[in-house]
């Protein structure tokens, strides 16, 4: 547990020394919000409807804002870090540490996100609400969002960790990781609401874990459609935990293969 607290402290310190970066991020994020306000106001007006795909204008604009929040809560570099360890051959020395690499990386990711939530999510949430009030939001829907975002973080961490480990096979990191990152955000609903996809593609997404990172948490925040019910919350939580359990098992298996390989070829 100590390592987690220490890592969080260090990350906060680093964050504070870059105070200009902090101020800039407060400026950056509203830019996208403003852009989306114009874009969707224009689309909604031209369509002459108050709802598109059951999203009100406010919900549509906020969809993309909340996607950024999800990124703030879940983002990490585990894929890049792991594949770099493997390709550069630095993995050996790291194994000598008195803490497992998995836990070390997890601590790092948590620490990174704690700083992100404090210095990006909270100010962003306040500024966005002033610029474009989220009229649909209730305390309950906001709490539901906060509940599902934690397993979403774990899910995202496990997926990225696995992608990082995949460097054992591909022996390449940059381009492969770029593709997977794009696929995850597209099929997870981070680029466009999944409701816009053709039905067959929506079906495919139902059988993938990615929508439980982006799309579902956003739905709870937006307080729309099926996400208003308690059953939906329980269902999403169950799906998230099933995926987490499955992926965790997979990391153990891949890890033991990796260890065998390292023992055989000596790093």
């Amino acid at each position, binding site marked *: 547990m100590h390592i987690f607290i220490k890592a969080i402290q260090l990350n*906060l310190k680093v964050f504070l020394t870059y105070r200009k970066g902090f101020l800039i991020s407060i400026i950056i994020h509203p830019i996208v919000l403003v852009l989306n306000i114009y874009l969707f106001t224009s689309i909604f007006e031209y369509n002459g409807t108050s709802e598109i795909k059951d999203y009100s204008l406010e919900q549509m604009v906020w969809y993309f804002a909340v996607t950024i929040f999800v990124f703030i809560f879940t983002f990490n570099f585990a894929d890049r870090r792991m594949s770099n360890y493997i390709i550069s051959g630095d993995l050996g020395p790291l194994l000598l540490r008195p803490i497992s690499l998995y836990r070390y990386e997890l601590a790092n990711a948590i620490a990174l996100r704690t700083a992100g939530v404090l210095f990006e999510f909270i100010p962003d949430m306040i500024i966005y609400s002033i610029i474009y009030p989220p009229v649909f939001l209730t305390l309950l829907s906001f709490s539901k969002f906060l509940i599902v975002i934690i397993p979403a973080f774990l899910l995202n961490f496990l997926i990225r960790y696995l992608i990082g480990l995949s460097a054992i096979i591909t022996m390449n990191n940059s381009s492969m990781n770029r593709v997977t990152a794009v696929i995850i955000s597209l099929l997870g609903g981070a680029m466009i609401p999944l409701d816009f996809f053709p039905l067959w593609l929506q079906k495919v997404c139902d059988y993938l874990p990615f929508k439980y990172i982006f799309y579902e948490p956003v739905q709870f925040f937006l307080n729309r459609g099926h996400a208003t019910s308690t059953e939906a919350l329980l269902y999403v939580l169950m799906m998230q935990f099933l995926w987490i359990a499955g992926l965790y098992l997979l990391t153990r298996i891949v890890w033991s293969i990796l260890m065998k390989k390292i023992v055989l070829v000596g790093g």
Partner: protein
Amino acid sequence: MNEYIIDVRGLEKTFTKVTKQEGFLSSLRMLFSRQYDLVHSVAGIDLQVRKGEIRGLIGPNGAGKSTIIKIMSGILHPTGGTVDIMGYTPWLDRERFVRHLGVLFGQKSQLWWDLPPIDTFSLNKEMYKIPHDEYTKRVEYFKELLQIGDVVHQPVRTLSLGERMKCELVCALLHDPPLIFLDEPTIGLDIVSKETIRQFIKQMNRDKQTTFIITTHDLTDLENLCDQVTIINKGSVVFDESMSRLSTFFANRKIIDVKFKHAVNEEHLAPYTIISYTPLSVQIEINLAEKDIKQVVYDIFDRFPVLDINIENIPIEDVIKHIYQS
């Protein structure tokens, strides 16, 4: 025409620096307000160098050496004082001035990592508009002198540190500058490479009357290369005389570094001047005017359980300390 190729007078440089405080709360406070300090990195320096000289510029870390080099190469503006190098004021005429200047930073590379050095050379040929015949002639000359005939056609990432440094040197010298700044040119190299680079510098100096300014932490570099040495400490010149004069401070002193197989009591080492001591190792300073080093070494081997023994020059920092004391 000035009799000196470099004529620096009354040079000053002051920086503002943020004061950092320890602890989490104070870093939180720094988010909103910061305190600044003035640091006098260079505090009134005079430096004159004649054409064809090899000048050593030494001093402890943070003494202001690199600030001076940066000002003399036009990268920094000074706060006060005048600089006249080959008739230029470096920071005002920078683009024209640097055509006549070669600079090598030992710890930084300008070679393209994935390509053979010869490609970077040809880029520099373009950059400095070197005529084709001249370029081929010089590359041949450098290849022979530095023994890098095959090396220049292999990708930089496959080269050894010494080979890379030689190629860096070529990059800095390809446009045939009459004045060259070398910052730690031999850092981290093996003895053979060091020697080749020293020979090369001497040869260039003889053949073309090239002037060199060298900063280094290696006393051997100074002994072998420099005619004149300037020592800088805390932004001021503390010594500016010939190499032979500097040698009197250290040439007749050596350090013997001994490791023991098992613990030795400090009292038994009493006759020697001890610099540092632990039960398993000791550093002894020998004044060659008083003692014969061979005799001392025999003596140590006779009397103590020696595991390993090394004879070294005294470190540059100690030389500076000696100068202070005298």
